[in-house]
């Protein structure tokens, strides 16, 4: 009788979770000073950085205002939307 041979193959696949972008989109209503104030308040930017991002929204139609862990990205998106900024989430590439 032949001995039963058991082969065990173990593999491990690890993938890093992609970071998420929080994107603010331009709209014709929100005042530039207000957008700057919201970015300072919610994302904690200093005025210079908040103005830079606000101008990016104004001139390019959108700006990635934060990038990182999904749960935190969703929190920021919700907070920005609660301040009436049109905001979306997207996977960073």
């Amino acid at each position, binding site marked *: 009788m032949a001995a039963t041979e058991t082969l065990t193959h173990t593999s491990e696949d690890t993938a890093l979770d992609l970071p998420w972008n929080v*994107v603010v*989109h331009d*709209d*014709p*209503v*929100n*005042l530039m*000073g*207000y957008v700057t*104030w919201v970015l300072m308040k919610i994302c904690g930017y200093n005025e210079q950085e908040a103005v830079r991002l606000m101008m990016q929204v104004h001139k390019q139609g959108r700006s990635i205002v934060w990038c990182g862990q999904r749960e935190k990205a*969703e929190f920021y*998106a*919700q907070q920005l*939307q*609660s*301040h*009436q*900024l*049109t*905001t*979306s*989430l*997207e*996977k960073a590439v």
Partner: protein
Amino acid sequence: MKLVLSPTGGLCIEAEVSSDWQLLLGILHDAQGSGFDLASQVGGHMNHADASQDWEEFVLTDLRDGFLADLKTVLTAVEAARLVAADGPGQVWIGREDARHWYSALNHARLALEAIHHFGSGLAIDPDELVPSRLAAGMRAHFYCAVQSVLLDLGLG
């Protein structure tokens, strides 16, 4: 209608005639007119397949509740002041603690008007080209924007 800064850092809106009260109540009518859903609007670019499964159920509900609470704050203040003034000359006081609610309600109204009339960022209004209803909406949007600018200068807290 006059806007007067208060010594405590707030803002006073002085209504002079009955139509001024109608203009202030117009904030609520404009914000809620035509079934405009601000919560959906500010998330209009969201790909809901990318967001958490409970985004629609919980986040949108919270957003709607928050926007509605801001509108109610404004409605309560305007109705109370109008009652005291008996629809005549009177004042609505906006304390610093309420500035953000007012700003939100005014923004809500402007976004709703923009969704209908598409004025654009310049709010360029040519009276000769606009039908009366659109002209009136544009004038209201101008007024709301002016109050917002003052509130922003005062600081939203």
